[in-house]
């Protein structure tokens, strides 16, 4: 079997695996948000940036190649990741104390993991639409981080409910229905797309506080200590 090294640890990989796939299989955590092993990699959040043979690369898209020397859990990379996470926080409107997803949110969990204690950057206070038109689902664009997971999951569901539109800082999530509202789309509460959101942008109505805050997934465990499935909310 072929091998790469991550922070000095020898990690085996199979032909065709990306760096993050090899790392996950070996129990090495690389922080990420837009990556989910169920779907084709996207490579947009850049949290999984690692240093491969001296150059930065995106671990979720970059193929593992025999003999690569990968730096992952370094002070510099974790600092950059913290700053990228802070960028996501100030770009949208993420107010953890009042968010139903608090404790189960991957964005928040990655923030905890990276020891993020403030937002650092000035807030954008973006005006984003909230869509409560669906009987079972709520779409709160204030919390969308453009990970594209709902888009990919909906395609895998055999539907095409979500898409990303707009350019640059005006990027936003849109819904495929005549009115543009979720209630008029063909999404169903049982779709994978309804449950894939790493933040609180897509929520199932009536379930917000079934598990009390304080007893949730990331309230007592660092995301890096969880299995790949648990990290992504299973």
């Amino acid at each position, binding site marked *: 079997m072929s091998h790469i090294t991550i922070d000095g640890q020898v990690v085996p990989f199979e032909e065709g695996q990306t760096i993050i796939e090899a790392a996950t299989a070996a129990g090495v955590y690389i922080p990420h948000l837009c990556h989910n092993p169920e779907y084709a990699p996207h490579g947009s959040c850049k949290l999984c940036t690692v240093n491969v043979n001296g150059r930065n690369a995106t671990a979720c898209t970059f193929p593992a190649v025999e003999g690569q020397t990968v730096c992952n859990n370094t002070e510099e990379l974790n600092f950059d990741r913290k700053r990228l996470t802070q960028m996501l926080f100030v770009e949208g409107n993420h107010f953890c104390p009042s968010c139903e997803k608090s404790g189960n949110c991957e964005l928040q969990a990655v923030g905890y993991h990276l020891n993020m204690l403030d937002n650092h*950057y*000035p807030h954008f206070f973006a005006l984003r639409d909230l869509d409560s038109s669906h009987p079972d689902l709520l779409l709160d664009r204030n919390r969308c981080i453009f990970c594209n997971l709902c888009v990919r999951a909906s395609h895998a569901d055999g539907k095409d409910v979500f898409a990303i539109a707009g*350019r640059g800082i005006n990027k936003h999530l849109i819904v495929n229905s005549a009115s543009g509202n979720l209630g008029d789309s063909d999404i169903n509460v049982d779709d994978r797309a309804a449950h894939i959101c790493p933040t609180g942008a897509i929520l199932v109505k009536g379930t917000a506080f079934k598990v009390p805050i304080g007893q949730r997934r990331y309230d007592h465990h660092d995301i890096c200590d969880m299995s790949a499935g648990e990290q992504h909310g299973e």
Partner: protein
Amino acid sequence: MESFINHTLKKYQDCATPLLMVLREVQAQYFHIPKLAVDLISQQLGVSRTQIIAVVEFYSFLSFESRGHYDILLSDSITDIMLGKQDVADYLCQKLHTPLGTVRADRLVSIDNTSCTGLCDQGPAALVNGHAIAYLTPERIDRMVAAIEHNISVSDWDSDLLAVDDNIHQAGLLLTAELAHGAALQAALQRGLTETLDEIKTAGLRGRGGAGFTTAMKWQFCRDTEASQRYVVCNADEGEPGTFKDRVLLNSYAHELIEGMTLCGAIIGATQGFIYLRGEYLHLYEPLLAVLAQRRSAGLLGDNILDQGLDFDITIQLGLGAYICGEESALIESLEGKRGIPRNRPPYPVTSGYLNKPTVVNNVETFVAAAHIALQGGAWFAAHGTEQSTGTKILSISGDCAKAGIYEYPFGTSIRQILNDCGADDVLGVQVGGPSGTFICDTEFDRVLGFEDLATGGSFIIFNTSRSIFDIVQNFTHFFAHESCGFCTPCRVGTSLLKKQFDKICTGHGSSGDVRELQEIAQLIKTTSHCGLGQTAAQPIITTLERYPELYNQKIKQISFEPGFDLDGALAIARQLSGRDDSNAHLAQVEEE
């Protein structure tokens, strides 16, 4: 509307890939993209409604909101501003009774800014319904206004209003070499295609877009990839502010370009080529179509070229105002009818490009050079330039000089000589390679053109000592924030943060930690962004901070705390709402002594 949409779709074979061409025509017809058109196109092409909406929202020249019947876009490049853009904008807006950024009530006119239109040697410039108008002066504006108020279609305007000059001031190796139509192809077929590829290798030709990848190697990779179809794409989307040399090549050297593309098709085994022409060069679209037609009837394009059993044809697709589409994989996405989002690499286009088939994407100048090399041989080309950068480079020179325009130099030429030739005095510095390149100051003029020193796609903007570094950097920094595609976090959020942070310092609201913070954001964008746009977006700040740290520090307030925001600025909305502007409605950032 249904019959117009059907007719337009038919023109493009009811195919989803030329979606941008279809939407361009819809926009021209209705002055916006009607929601009904989205539904009709979606049904006919089987493309989801959301993909069409996403495309409309992505490209600057498309809009869901109605534009005026005469949509005027003023080039906002630093070079246009230096040529007096602000004054002509004020004059135009006043004459048409239409403030910048608005649509007139009668819907006849709308006026807005746009990124560099590639007329930096003849600015200030504008696009009117896509048609380029150069040398804006009050006199010419009066004539434009009269034509608009009389509802004369732009294509019927006086030809001198629509004229675009080549302004070639120094022709070198490529611009003087003769090439009879078909001569390069004939030479290549006689010598053998593999042998001709070897000549290109010998020539040492590297990509002229700026990155400098070895052309022969790119063609070889593509040729060696197993595939049922391969493609040749000409990147004619020069959007780097200050670049306009491809405009001149496309205008006066189109045969050389198309011959180079055909040669590439023959060598790599492609039968289809594309010219991705930036939307700002709409005035070149019809002339290019005519050259293609002329070459088809001469047996130099199409089926059985030169009776040698060679098939190759070319389609032109127009861009719609997105700088990012100059990035080759974003360009390919755009050619496929999508948003211009750069792809993850690997795979590279040479193995998986257009429709996931092996694709060569090269700059206009690269194809022109390849055509000449096929005729003259590799040694002819390699005899010029330097060891690592053979041949010549065509520069687009603009800014503070006596003769702005096109200059061709062998690589290795010093900046000093170039400045002498174009008549630049009292020079503060030069932006080599455009905003994504390097700002060099007056102590560096012995540096030379070349991949080993100053690489450039052709942009060369000269600033004299009357110019402010901050005006220049601010224009560039705003440009990148506007043009970021938004795919990755560092570029999407980072370029906007950089803009805010730079403006804060620029307007005198920065304090001691703010330059350090600016530097930190700049580095983060550079090292973690997805593509070249983000990786170079902070270059104007990084390169000027290196050279003029004292200028930045002079902008900083000498106060012991770091205000998080501009106190007085935060009251602007309150002042507007209350209609007040007295002294009590303003707050100083620091309490007066």
